[in-house]
């Protein structure tokens, strides 16, 4: 084990930065370590704060997930905090109430629902955003005491297939690898993962490792050319959904070339022949595989050769594999290849599922998914129900464990629609946006007799369908632990008091439990109490050192004895943490022993299946969905940081230029997608990296930010039969230009944001928060007559236009409202391509009254930029707000490397997320010059 690996598994003894030590250093600013709440990388951050406000965030150099690195989202964390937009008071039936009233309403309505309709008429829908402690309490309350199995989580949408595959193959929901494996691999295969955008810090680590080791190779397998291709030695732009065919082909090829590890297969696995036979049911000739996957045969052979001839191979996969109606089998096809080559349980080897959410794994550890019970025990695990009943009984009056697994996410909402489930508590997630056929989910919830929502943001769209709204604490307030993609448990620390009436989720649920008469079992006073109980349960009757009956791989009993101070000071650590591994475990299955009853890993036959959502004459285009670099989930948090809005400001659809042309669509034009459950309106982006006949659209936008840009509405609720994960990556849609009569940009001062609503009659609208103002991008229905905008402004805005300009031929208009020289609103009617970069204008909104503004300055306001100021183009580097045009100019001025660009413009020098874009700009320009 290398030094670095050793460091990765050790408990860091430095407690100088923990809150407990603040007594000795009572002067602000305080610096505390905590964990970033965004993606599954789980980076450590150092937060500078004064006990009330966070002033700065930087990467924690001591945290083994990131060693000080931080992406732009993490770097902007402090910009997303603050009371603005927070949910601050409980509401019952739309009326603000105090906590006693709210809790009483929750208690009495849950109780009466169960009395009248049975225990399983109640459900919970949780989130990978919850801390492990919150998750534990939720799971215990619903499954253990309310006695309903219907508890599922949004992790279902993100990695349920990976979980199901791990459990089938290894006997446990256990990621075998750690981040260091990416650094010491000879070959890293990114399959269905745009690591560069979605796990930027891990990508930076991989990139740095590749720079250190010129022999390392990276293969990117993805239907579209993504920024992750920046470091790819080989790119396979395969047909969407053909992954299982590809890896089955690889398995057969390895066998044919004598590249399977017979000894490993015999000693440690079972099922190879069946898996191989299944793979051989298809034509195993390279040309046939290449044809079916629509990739170049030579490239395919190169990939096969590289995979087969290297031992230290990590296949890192994510939603591109998981979000499929055959996701579990796709994961299995990857696992099969790793087992067949013995490429697992070694440094730099293994099938590595990287999770999307910060605590998806923590949620699974406590049993947050519908098929799970608790502490990596499922309902069907022999003896598990009895064991958990006894464990929880120790403090419980009414142990009422159900005996059947509950509904998984999609089925859960179906059950609500059928009226079987009549009450649901939704925590920290936004299913009316993120679920497939999201518009239908909204209708279902609107009709559900009792919807309780705990959330921290007031703009979460799901609040619109809630009967009871409970304000929850948010990041930097919540206190507990999260587990990242490499099984590393880290503290997310509560540094600030929650604002007004916001409360911690565990507290809210414990109060409800007490109201329901379960007080003794939920007598927690601190998250440390909960964590200790969770850790004890993981070790309860767990002979984890011995295979077979009763042994569970997930064991953190080594942490069960933590007192409050040790919990406060807990350093990041990878489970299992048991008697035999008190310092945690970097890598699993090193001894070739798996968590299955017989200790053998399972290869399983995989039959490739086409996506269930079929393209048709009516919906001829394949829709791929995914994340973008600077946004997170449904934007309730990242949408507040203006610099995170500058990279991609509006919802968009990426398409191949030839597809655009054949549909009569120009770059930046508004378009409409029509899918099974709804429509999606967004701006076209032409991208040569997109395959013909396929589109890409981001998953983030929703009704809070745009008129019709919920990607969930385009995805049919088709799910994987094993994992229940929806097929979010393979929608079928039609595409057409959106007919509009006009386009307009309206910007209103931040303090007017709540009073101006320009959306009516708009065919398209998007809200784009800026630092001091709110921008609306609008487009009008062609049926409506062109507006008299000055009259409209007079009737709809807080003050009429004080200056305006007009272009008679182009029907362009600009106008603004100045109050004593203070900019209050700004309007441009015309395509947004004509807009300058809006930072200067945004800054104008922050200026105080100045009645002495001279005419020239006032005209600049209408121009939207400072005199002579260059419009630097679309923002590429969000950290330093550097635009494309400035970068291209610097390249033309002689900068030939990203380093030179960084030295001149500072772009790419902070989080590094934009380096791939910088690199492709450099390449484009050099191509331009050589032509």
């Amino acid at each position, binding site marked *: 084990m290398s030094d670095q690996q050793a460091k990765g598994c050790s408990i860091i003894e430095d407690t100088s930065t923990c809150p407990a030590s603040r007594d000795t250093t009572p002067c602000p600013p305080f610096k505390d370590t905590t964990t970033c709440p965004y993606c599954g990388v789980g980076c450590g951050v150092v937060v500078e704060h004064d006990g009330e406000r966070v002033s700065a965030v930087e990467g924690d150099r001591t945290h083994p997930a990131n060693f000080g690195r931080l992406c732009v989202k993490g770097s902007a964390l402090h910009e997303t905090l603050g009371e603005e937009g927070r949910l601050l008071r409980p509401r019952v039936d739309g009326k603000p109430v105090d906590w006693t009233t709210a809790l009483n309403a929750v208690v009495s309505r849950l109780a009466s629902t169960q009395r009248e309709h049975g225990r399983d008429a109640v459900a919970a829908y949780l989130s990978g955003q919850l801390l492990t402690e919150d998750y534990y309490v939720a799971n215990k309350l619903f499954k253990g005491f309310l006695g309903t199995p219907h508890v599922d989580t949004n992790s279902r949408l993100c990695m349920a297939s990976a979980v199901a595959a791990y459990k089938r193959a290894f006997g446990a929901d256990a990621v075998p690898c750690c981040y260091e494996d990416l650094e010491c691999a000879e070959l890293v295969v990114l399959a269905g993962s745009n690591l560069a955008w979605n796990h930027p810090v891990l990508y930076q680590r991989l990139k740095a490792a590749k720079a250190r080791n010129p022999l390392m190779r990276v293969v990117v397998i993805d239907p579209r050319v993504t920024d992750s291709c920046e470091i790819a030695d080989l790119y396979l732009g395969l047909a969407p959904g053909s992954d299982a065919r590809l890896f089955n082909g690889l398995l057969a090829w390895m066998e044919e070339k004598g590249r399977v590890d017979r000894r490993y297969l015999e000693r440690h696995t079972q099922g190879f022949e069946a898996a191989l036979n299944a793979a051989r049911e298809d034509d195993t000739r390279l040309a046939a595989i290449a044809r079916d996957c629509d990739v170049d045969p030579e490239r395919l052979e190169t990939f096969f050769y590289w995979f087969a001839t290297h031992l230290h191979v990590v296949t890192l996969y994510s939603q591109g594999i998981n979000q499929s109606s055959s996701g579990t089998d796709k994961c299995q096809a990857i696992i099969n290849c790793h087992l067949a080559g013995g490429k697992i349980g070694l440094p730099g080897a293994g099938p590595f599922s990287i999770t999307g959410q910060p605590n998806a794994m923590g949620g699974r550890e406590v049993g947050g998914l519908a098929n799970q019970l608790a502490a990596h025990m499922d309902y069907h695990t022999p003896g598990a129900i009895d064991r958990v009943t006894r464990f929880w009984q120790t403090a419980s009056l009414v142990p009422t464990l159900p005996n059947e697994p509950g509904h998984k996410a999609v089925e859960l909402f179906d059950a609500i629609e059928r009226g079987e489930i009549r009450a649901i508590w939704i925590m920290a997630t936004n299913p009316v946006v993120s679920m497939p056929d999201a518009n239908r989910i909204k209708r279902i919830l609107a009709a559900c007799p009792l919807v309780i929502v705990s959330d921290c943001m007031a703009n979460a769209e799901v609040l619109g369908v809630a009967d009871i709204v409970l304000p929850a604490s948010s990041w930097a307030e919540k206190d507990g632990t999260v587990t990242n993609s490499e099984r590393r448990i880290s503290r997310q620390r509560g540094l600030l008091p929650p604002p007004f009436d916001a409360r911690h989720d565990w507290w809210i649920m414990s109060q409800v439990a007490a109201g329901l008469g379960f007080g003794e079992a939920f007598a927690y006073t601190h998250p440390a109490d909960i964590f200790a109980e969770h850790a004890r349960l993981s070790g309860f009757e767990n002979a984890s050192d011995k295979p077979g009956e009763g042994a569970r791989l997930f064991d953190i009993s080594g942490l069960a004895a933590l007192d409050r101070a040790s919990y406060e000071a807990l350093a990041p650590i990878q489970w299992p943490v048991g008697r035999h591994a008190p310092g945690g475990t970097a890598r699993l299955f090193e001894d070739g022993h798996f968590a299955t009853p017989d200790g053998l890993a399972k290869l399983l036959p995989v039959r490739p299946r086409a996506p269930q959502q079929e393209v048709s004459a009516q919906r001829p285009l394949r829709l791929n969905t995914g994340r973008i670099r600077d946004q997170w989930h449904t934007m309730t948090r990242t949408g507040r940081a203006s610099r995170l809005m500058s990279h991609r400001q509006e919802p968009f659809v990426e398409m191949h230029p030839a597809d655009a042309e054949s549909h009569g669509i120009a770059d930046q034009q508004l378009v409409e997608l029509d899918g099974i459950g709804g429509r999606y309106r967004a701006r076209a982006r032409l991208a040569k990296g997109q395959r013909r006949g396929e589109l890409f659209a981001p998953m983030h936008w929703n009704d809070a930010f745009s008129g019709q840009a919920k990607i969930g509405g385009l995805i049919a609720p088709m799910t994987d039969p094993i994992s229940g994960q929806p097929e979010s990556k393979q929608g079928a849609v039609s595409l057409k230009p959106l007919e509009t009569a006009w386009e307009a940009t309206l910007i209103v001062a931040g303090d007017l944001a709540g009073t101006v609503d320009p959306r009516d009659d708009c065919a398209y609208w998007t809200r784009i928060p800026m630092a001091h103002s709110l921008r609306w991008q609008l487009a009008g229905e062609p049926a409506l007559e062109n507006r008299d905008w000055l009259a409209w402004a007079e009737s709809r805005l807080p003050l009429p236009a*004080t*200056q*305006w*300009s*007009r*272009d*008679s*031929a*182009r029907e*362009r208009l600009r106008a603004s409202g*100045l109050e004593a020289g203070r900019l209050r609103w700004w309007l441009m009617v015309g395509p947004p391509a*004509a807009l300058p970069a809006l930072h200067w204008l945004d800054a104008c909104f922050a200026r105080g009254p100045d009645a002495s*503004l*001279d*005419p*020239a300055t*006032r*005209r*600049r306001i*209408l*121009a939207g*930029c400072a*005199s*002579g100021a*260059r419009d630097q183009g679309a923002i590429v580097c969000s950290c330093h707000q550097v635009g494309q045009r400035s970068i291209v100019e610097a390249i033309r001025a002689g900068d030939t490397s990203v380093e030179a660009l960084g030295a001149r413009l500072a772009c790419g020098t902070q989080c590094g997320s934009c380096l791939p874009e910088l690199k492709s700009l450099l390449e484009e320009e050099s191509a331009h010059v050589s032509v």
Partner: protein
Amino acid sequence: MSQKSSQDRFPNASRNLPSDPCSAPTHLVIVGNGMAGHRLLSALLKHPERPERITVLGEESSAAYNRILLSSWLADEIERDALDLPLENIATAGVTWRLGERVVTIDRQRRRIHTDRGEPVDYDRLVLATGSRPALPDVPGIRLGNVGGFRDLVDTTWLTSRPAGSRAVVLGGGLLGLEAAEGLRKRGLAVTVLQRSERLMNRQLDETAASWLRSELEGRGLAIETHARLAACEGDADGNVTTVRLEDGRRLPAACVVVATGITPHTALARQSGLNVARGIVVDATLTTSDPAIHALGECCEFEGRTYGLVDPIWRQVEVLAARLCSQPTGGYRESPCATRLKVANISIYAFGPVETPPGHETLVYADPENGDYRRLLLHDNRLVGAVLYGDTTAGPGYFHHAREEHDLSACREVLLFGADDATRLLAESATRKLEEAA
């Protein structure tokens, strides 16, 4: 370079020029000591090749003065001295002024001039710079006492002596009328402006700018009547005006009436001498009349059907004629777009090109009523052909330059109203791009 381009664009421009410029005349006579005559004299005096003798005949007895500043003097903003147009630091040897002397006839055969007093004057070359007269409407009573124009020192002196508190009517809502009205108002008179058309300064301002100007002036206390057609001036027993009557029957009391409804080229002398005269004295591109020994320039002349009232083209005429009289080659005078730069009652206005929007033309408009800042640009085929700037006019010359150079402004159309720098930069960028694409 400029000469080449002018010939390219006006291939006929040089054809009127004699191929062999004649030698400088030994005695040049300039009839008229107004601004054009004076400017010509100044230009000649700076020239080593000038005519040996120059005689200036002026009908007004005063030395040359700046007519443009009369309104400032009327408004009591400047002293009388400020009007003087001295010939500073220039040797005036060989120049004779005969002021207060009216030319009666020209004997073109003998090249001799007869005046209303003094000796006749012989000339080798004669320049007519006789200017213009107020155009008086043909209505009864227009010759009554205290009805007059606002053209010269005499008129202005008359106006400055009008008693405060009395009523004045100004005919004409153009530049001159408004200046007279503002001057009188500042002197304490109750002033009404009568404008025939539907708006003030209808030849320079569009509806918006004109209405802003009207509100501004009304705010200061002027009464303004548009669509007001004068029917008659009515007087008392002494023959002095007391009332004006409009065509709609209204009658307005008036202790004085200022006529500022336009000017008429003063051509009586030329006509009588048998020169070719249309509205003005017809000249060619060398400012030569139908008699090769006689030139004309300024408000009295007519070139290609045009007559003149603003200084810019007249100054260019002076340059051409001065060169010609000094036997220097010139490109000849040619008509070119010309911008009006005005300051009415301390409001700056800059305008050129058509005021109405001709078919196929497009407009860009910027309005900031709070700050009295307005601009309207007229485009045809992405080229600037007209502009009205009201308030802040500093960008006017920049726009005028674009118009004169016929720049294709599509690259900077979006920012054209807001700042010259941006427009210039975008045009440069677009030009670079085109070069790159071509390469």
